[in-house]
């Protein structure tokens, strides 16, 4: 199985880090993976994309991901300005950080999971220079939606990335999001 995942977020929200942590967790579980940002100039606050490609066996691909089977949205407001379903394969999976209703067209053809990652992050006081950091919570929701790696694997990858309390809090965010994410 080849998982091709596209992350939508805003510059500074940690989409690139989330893609990389997912790959690190997958590699720890014996899979092959690669992650990459959108290749261009990015600005804090502007809509950005990041990508992850994970498979059981090693592959040689380096071309971009244009037809993902999983799309992750870190910020619900991006739905108003970006067509996040663009290229998403039929029966593909959407994972959206939201506390509100999701536009109908995103529900009809796709498996859509929602989680209020912002609430989880706020409750754990995960913020950086005024930004609520939702990327680690979203990782928990992703592995709930699609079993790319185990929830423990994601939590370990988070702990390995940030030592001490920061790592623990972010791992806790992933755990809570894993428990709270629901399919619509």
């Amino acid at each position, binding site marked *: 199985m080849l998982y091709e995942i596209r992350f939508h977020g805003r510059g500074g929200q940690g989409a690139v880090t989330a893609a*990389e942590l997912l790959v690190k967790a997958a590699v720890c579980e014996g899979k092959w993976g690669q992650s990459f940002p959108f*290749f261009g100039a990015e600005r804090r606050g502007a809509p950005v994309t990041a990508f992850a490609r994970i498979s059981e066996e090693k*592959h*040689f*691909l*380096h*071309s971009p991901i244009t037809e993902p089977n999983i799309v992750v949205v870190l910020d619900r407001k991006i739905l108003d300005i970006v067509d996040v379903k663009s290229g998403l394969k039929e029966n593909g999976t959407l994972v959206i950080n939201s506390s509100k209703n999701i536009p109908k067209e995103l529900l009809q053809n796709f498996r859509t999971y929602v989680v209020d990652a912002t609430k989880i992050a706020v409750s754990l006081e995960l913020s950086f220079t005024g930004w609520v950091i939702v990327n680690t919570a979203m990782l928990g929701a992703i592995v709930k939606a699609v079993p790319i790696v185990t929830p423990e694997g994601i939590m370990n990858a988070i702990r390995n990335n940030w030592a001490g309390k920061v790592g623990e809090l972010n791992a806790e965010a992933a755990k809570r999001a894993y428990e709270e994410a629901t399919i619509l």
Partner: protein
Amino acid sequence: MIQVLTGNHSAAYAALLSDVEVVSAYPITPQTQIVEKIAEFVETGKLKAKYVRVESEHSAMAVCVGASSAGARTFTATSSHGLLHMSEMVYWASAARLPIVMPVVCRTLGPPWNIWNEHTDMLLLRDFGWIQFFAESNQEVLDTIIQAYRIAEDERVLIPVMVGLDAFTLSHTSEPVDVPEIESVRKFLPPRTNAPYVFDPSNPFTFGNLAYPSHHMEIKYMHHKAVEDARKVILEVDDEWNKIFCRKYGFLDKFMCEDAKVIILTIGSSAGDAKEAAKVLRKAGIAAGVLRIRVINPFPSKELSNILSNVEAVAVVDRNLSPGNGGILLEKIKSSLYSSKYRPFIKGYLAGLGGRDITVKDYIKIFEKTLEAYKKGETEWFNLNLEMTGS
């Protein structure tokens, strides 16, 4: 230990594992992360090196020339316009026979301004007398840079080495990289001690002085011969690397080439997508293969013609442009096959300039178009009604 690393960080780890002694640093997108990471290694005491911040790429290479002349193992990295800006010193480094190693993150030259991948920057400097490698993966970036010091510092060679890695598709892409233990790398690559021509106040001699026409040509012949002789050393070093680290590369990366009738020939990370395309064609019963050239200088002409001797059609995919001449690879491959008894049908493609994507689907199309062109041959029966002929 397997780590998930970008191409840029793989290059930085290679410098760390090679115990480089002098690093000169000037930033340029998409290379900057290499020298940033090395700055971190030096600052945290992981790497005991002199880190020199310079005001331009020209000075970056000038620092390497000075430090390497004094016997230090030196490193710098650059890209695109940075490479061209330092080019005067780049030629000096090879003609002075200094074993400098420099990764080049291959990026398009402007105008129009463009930060994405193309190989024109490094290929323009093919004739500068350096040994040139192009990597396909981050693992290969790391392995090749370490190998490069062994090759460059070998007394039979004493030629600097450039290692090309593609902008973004390698430089900013994270993938699994087996990072070897530093103790095993130190056994493979001992400190630079065998430099026969280094600054030595107790034994003074001149460097780069005026050479009259009576001597100049012989000195150039020695430079040329050293690059030629590097062939043997490149393979020796690769064999030894394989014995210790179980990874082997050679001059050419041959993917499904044994019985291939149609081959895509290219360089860099995009070759991987061509390999995936070849797999698709194989499933459809077409004997497709991919030949990736890893060493561009010295060019593996003999190895190439051996492999192509059984191939019907070859697609050369150039991600570079010499305006007025076309693809640099195509020209080189055609000229290197001139003395071969068998010369396959060759079709050139200029693709992916300025970072335009070349996907697996595109490579499938290139395979198909090449076969189609081969079958048509040089002369085509135009508007022929085959039905009328009964065939």
